[in-house]
């Protein structure tokens, strides 16, 4: 049976997708700005962040409305709950892109410290994690969501590597400190983006299977009430 409620849930999912595509694009744009040393992209990232924020508010309102008016149950309840959380994560991703742009604008004022290798790699990993987490949401694919969670370690490792490498630059030459710190921070922001993608995937698993896996609760044998 087709319900009017299904239309509303569809609208919710569409808004979330719109937000996800903006968030994804904002990461790419921010990193492009860094790679191409072009500050003209900065405005686009800021605009995208504003749009993302607005969608976050709209999604909040829509979810509250659906809770209040529809008293959702079971899979509907999990969909709305997951959407609320996913939208917070996407909003934070938008913020991290802005952070990256802020660091980039600083870096563009000074000569290049070193060729960028790991940061673009990390960015593409993080961006793909965001993309796949949303694909998993759309397709209700818990296997893909799990896969995204597993990829988080790779990003963490790259982040550590970037940190160690830039540390050697800073030790060699104190005039490199400001630039190295900015790059380290960008690594840190990308690492956070991957964490948000992981959160999104955890929520996809909650939505699809009704199973909680966040905070590595499976490892310490959190009794999921089955």
């Amino acid at each position, binding site marked *: 049976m087709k319900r009017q409620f299904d239309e509303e849930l569809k609208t919710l999912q569409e808004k979330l997708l719109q937000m996800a595509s903006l968030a994804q694009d904002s990461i790419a744009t921010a990193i492009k700005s860094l790679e191409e040393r072009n500050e003209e992209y900065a405005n686009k990232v800021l605009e995208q962040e504003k749009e993302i924020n607005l969608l976050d508010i709209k999604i909040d309102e829509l979810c509250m409305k659906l809770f209040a008016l529809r008293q959702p*149950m079971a*899979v509907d*309840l*999990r969909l709305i709950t997951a959407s609320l959380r996913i939208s917070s994560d996407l909003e934070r991703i938008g913020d991290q892109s802005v952070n990256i742009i802020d660091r980039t604008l600083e870096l563009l004022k000074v000569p290049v410290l070193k060729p960028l290798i790991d940061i673009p790699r990390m960015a593409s990993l993080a961006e793909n994690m965001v993309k796949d987490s949303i694909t998993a949401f759309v397709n209700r694919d818990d296997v893909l969501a799990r896969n995204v969670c597993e990829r988080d370690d790779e990003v963490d490792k790259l982040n550590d590597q970037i940190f160690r490498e830039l540390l050697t630059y800073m030790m060699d030459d104190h005039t490199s400190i400001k630039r190295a710190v900015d790059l380290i921070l960008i690594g840190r922001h990308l690492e956070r983006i991957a964490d948000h993608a992981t959160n999104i995937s955890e929520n996809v698993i909650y939505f699809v299977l*009704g199973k909680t896996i966040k905070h590595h609760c499976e490892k310490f044998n959190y009794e999921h*009430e089955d």
Partner: protein
Amino acid sequence: MELKAKMESKHLNFYYGNKMALKDISIVAPANKVTALIGPSGCGKSTFIRTLNRMNDIIAGTKVEGEILLDGVNINSPKMDVVELRTQVGMVFQKPNPFPKSIFDNIAYGLRIAGMKDRKKIAEIVEKSLKKAALWDEVKDRLHENAFALSGGQQQRLCIGRSLAVDPEVMLFDEPCSAIDPIATAKIEDLIQKMRENYTVVIVTHNMQQAARVSDYTAFLMLGELIEYGETTKIFTNPKNKLTEDYITGRFG
């Protein structure tokens, strides 16, 4: 799920003439918990709850197979005293059905037919029962008015008080709020939640939100079969059966 059963049906079949209304139903109503029965119209939930105090006995041509246990004793055994059973297992119906008597006499009625003569004792129990039914404060100054002067919600609480007066162990509610307004419904629901301290409660409801709000365990029935039974929080957040999910999310029913 380790549960101490207060009432329990085991492989219960029930027939209206040749028509099988309940098929192999095994449900546990755990002690001091609220168990809700939900399901589309005609699924057998009212038939089921009525088997728990043998209300179906009065319908001609009905037949019961399987067991219904109250504290481990089969209530359908020939030795069971039905009147005694119904004092132990009280029932409240869809529409409030007070006797055409005063508020006081409605509550006192069961005590008097049970042979209680001590007026002071009766008055004490009436007060206690009305307090348990959360009605005392509203009626204490008008105990001798006719019960029909009360609002629908008050009448329903009076009926709850009337059942409680004879000190039952199990309380059955068959759609107790279907004929009353939302405020009165909230009062009855609140009452049911408090009742679990002293009683075992089984409730039939069409209103799924009500089942979700008041019960600890929920059984979903369809066409006379038990589809799913489990903790209410589980049933309403993550049901195991697709049929349950479709029903509680309003995709059919």
